[in-house]
């Protein structure tokens, strides 16, 4: 038969209060196996308290070639940042 196991992306929450973070990927036949393998591959030293597994094909990624139109418009919008606004030096708590 010789079918390849699909690729899964692994996200781990290192401790409560923190977000799940991408840890890496691995191959597994199904979600349950991906979960078991993720535990063995990415949390052998208590690196996590929660794991998400997502089959890689379900992730839609932005294309770096479009980075210009996607991200550059933010660069000239300094008014979104607090330092854009002029205030007297002696004002406090703001």
């Amino acid at each position: 038969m010789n079918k390849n196991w699909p690729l899964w992306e692994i996200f781990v929450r290192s401790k409560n209060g923190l977000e799940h973070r991408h840890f890496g990927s691995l191959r597994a036949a199904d979600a349950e196996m991906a979960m078991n393998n993720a535990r063995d591959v990415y949390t052998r030293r208590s690196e996590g308290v929660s794991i998400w597994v997502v089959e890689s094909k379900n992730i839609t990624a932005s294309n770096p070639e479009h980075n210009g139109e996607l991200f550059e418009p933010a660069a000239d919008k300094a008014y979104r940042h607090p330092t854009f606004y002029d205030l007297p030096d002696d004002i406090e708590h703001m």
Partner: protein
Amino acid sequence: MKNKENMNENEKQTKNLEEIFEAKIARDEKIEPKDWMPEKYRKTHIRQISQHAHSEIVGMLPEGNWITRAPSLRRKVALLAKVQDEAGHGLYLYSACETLGISREELYDQLHSGKAKYSSIFNYPTLTWADMGAIGWLVDGAAIINQVPLCNTSFGPYARAMVRVCKEESFHQRQGYEIMMTLCNGTQEQKEMAQDALNRWWWPSLMMLGPTDDESIHTEQSMKWKLKRKTNDELRQQFIDQTVPQADILGLTIPDPDLKYNNDTGHYDFGKIDWDEFWQVVKGHGMCNKERISARKNAWDNGEWVRDAAVAYAEKQVEKDEVKKAV
């Protein structure tokens, strides 16, 4: 005429992209899988990362040889954990390599067919328990020296995998040194066993850091891409300088009559490395090359029905879910 103009336009564009790429690396920015990269960068990385992954996987075999015969439960759990780490490191590296557009299956094929290399040190046999000590101390020691600079390499997925590998690897060397220490504090026979292991693993460990700089064909380009931060000879010197005092503490003798501290340079001078032996082993004529690859191939081939069964089971579960939904 029109065609020629297009060609020039394309070439110009590629050249432009290459300049942007080189500048990015010079600024210490990372390259991520979907970013544009020169074909040579991609190929070199596939070669090096896969070679690294294969070394982790094949590297399990010489140590696997001693798991069932470890002298105590303490040693056994440590060795098991070390070998399991190596499997994990192989997996991190295979998936980093796959981001470059090569499939896992192709990678395995290259290993099994001999097209891809792995670290030649794993083609030496592990004859006694002391070899577990010497491997942890020397082979992992040399590997750490090789790997630490790679945590800063330019290709993001490789660098991230290496950070994790290096973090985990530090116990490997310590457990090896502890084994050597225990043997050296033991009976005369045990100490001789430790000395014998050092005698056999010393030179291959020096070779492990790669051919000398003037023989190394990839060094220059790899330095430019920050795939290498130090040359092979620099790494080798660093390894020798830090290992000799460790051997002294064990009371063992490094098997090199020319080894001598050089007051002028502040480094150890050392004897000539037998590069013929190195190339023989690389070319497949080492003591265990055939055994290693056949063990690997057998594991893969004999596991095929298990992999297939897992896929069949997964497909069946999906079908069942669909039937449930339909009802």
